[in-house]
């Protein structure tokens, strides 16, 4: 369940309900922003069935990758 894709808000539009245009790497769609009232153009949101359900915390995103990168590189080829 829960096909949620991160996209960038490019503009806000009038409601009701509050809507916006979100860009997904060159594909744009109208998205309902009712559930991310704090989000502004330029922010990234997770979009599920045409609704933004969460704002992407960019610092946490970076931190997650940094933590993984800190794991010593595995020398073995992944088998299988």
């Amino acid at each position: 369940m829960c096909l949620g894709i991160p996209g960038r808000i490019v503009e806000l539009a009038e409601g009701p309900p509050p809507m916006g245009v979100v860009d997904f790497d060159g594909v744009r769609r109208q998205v309902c922003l009712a559930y991310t009232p704090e989000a502004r153009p330029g922010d990234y949101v997770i979009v599920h069935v045409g609704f933004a359900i969460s704002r992407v915390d960019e610092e946490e995103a970076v931190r997650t990758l940094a933590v993984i990168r800190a794991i010593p590189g595995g020398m073995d080829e992944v088998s299988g």
Partner: protein
Amino acid sequence: MKYLDEYRDPDLARRLVAEIRAVVTRPWSVMEVCGGQTHTIVRQGIDELIPVRMIHGPGCPVCVTPLEMVDRALEIAARPEVVFTSYGDMLRVPGTTADLLALKARGADVRVVYSPLESVRLAREHPDRQVVFFAVGFETTAPANAMAVLRGAEEGLANFSVLVSHVLVPPAMTAILDSSGNEVQAFLAAGHVCAVMGWTEYEPLAERYRVPIVVTGFEPLDLLEGVLMAVRQLEEGRFEVENQYARAVRRGGNPTALQTIRRVFRVSDRAWRGIGVIPRSGLELTAEFAAFDAAARFGVADVTAREHPACIAGEILRGTRLPTDCVAYGTLCTPRHPLGAPMVSAEGTCAAFHNAGRAAFHNAGALGPGTQRSQGGPR
């Protein structure tokens, strides 16, 4: 794509796999709840890379939609005045005698929508038709479905209604943990469900059942990191709720979404296909919005159905059997001719297995390095 591609990095995936192998001293069993997670795991062969037994949970709202709910949908969709709208996944789920796609072939007005607001728009634009929306999903989809109902009410759309078939995750996890023969030792909780709901509901579960629960995302690195966090807890004897998907999930969830869900829906008992009724595991419309209930409006609320005992969908949804254990898997039951829901939905465990080419004699899980992985074989 930003915030997606970075979590598919092969070098980082290798590191996580190596770290998991370094950490585990026993073959732990971890269940991922969400169908989207199952999809990634099976398609990317992640379960075959790690010495952890991944048990695939009932994380596909399509698969767990009870037979009678599909039959109700079919009855409504067959009416000439109805425009029946649904998410794509539901169109191929078999009811007792047909599925929505077949009904469409016979002339029913069945339409796929990406967003429930499309259904509302159709209702607005076609006042002479009854527009019905099939509101399926876990908690992730509830805010969207709730908004459709709210809009219907605010715009006074008398020709709009919803057939509600929502299911909730924590009661399902409890049912699994309570079942005899349960082998799940840790959970990867569904990331987007938790983006909406937060993870406070999981804290009592972790404590009561002494199981680690890691809120996990959907990309390969997310799943591998989630597994790593889970097995670290298991190795260290901890049983806490941790958040791997920190970039999208906060402990309190999404307050605006929660507010709307609670206004439009209330918790009810719900039947899960193949499992039975799990108390307080579903959603139904509150009294304020009862007028929008399609089951009542079309008089199908008492439609019932019975499953055939031969189909082991229930055990698969509970994670106690693998698709490859089923006699019908790959023979009588294929995505082309599905016998049960887990073979129909792209997120269903059986379909995921079949489309990844898992053969009927495949050895379940990789419990150590050097496990043979079969490809091809009789299907």
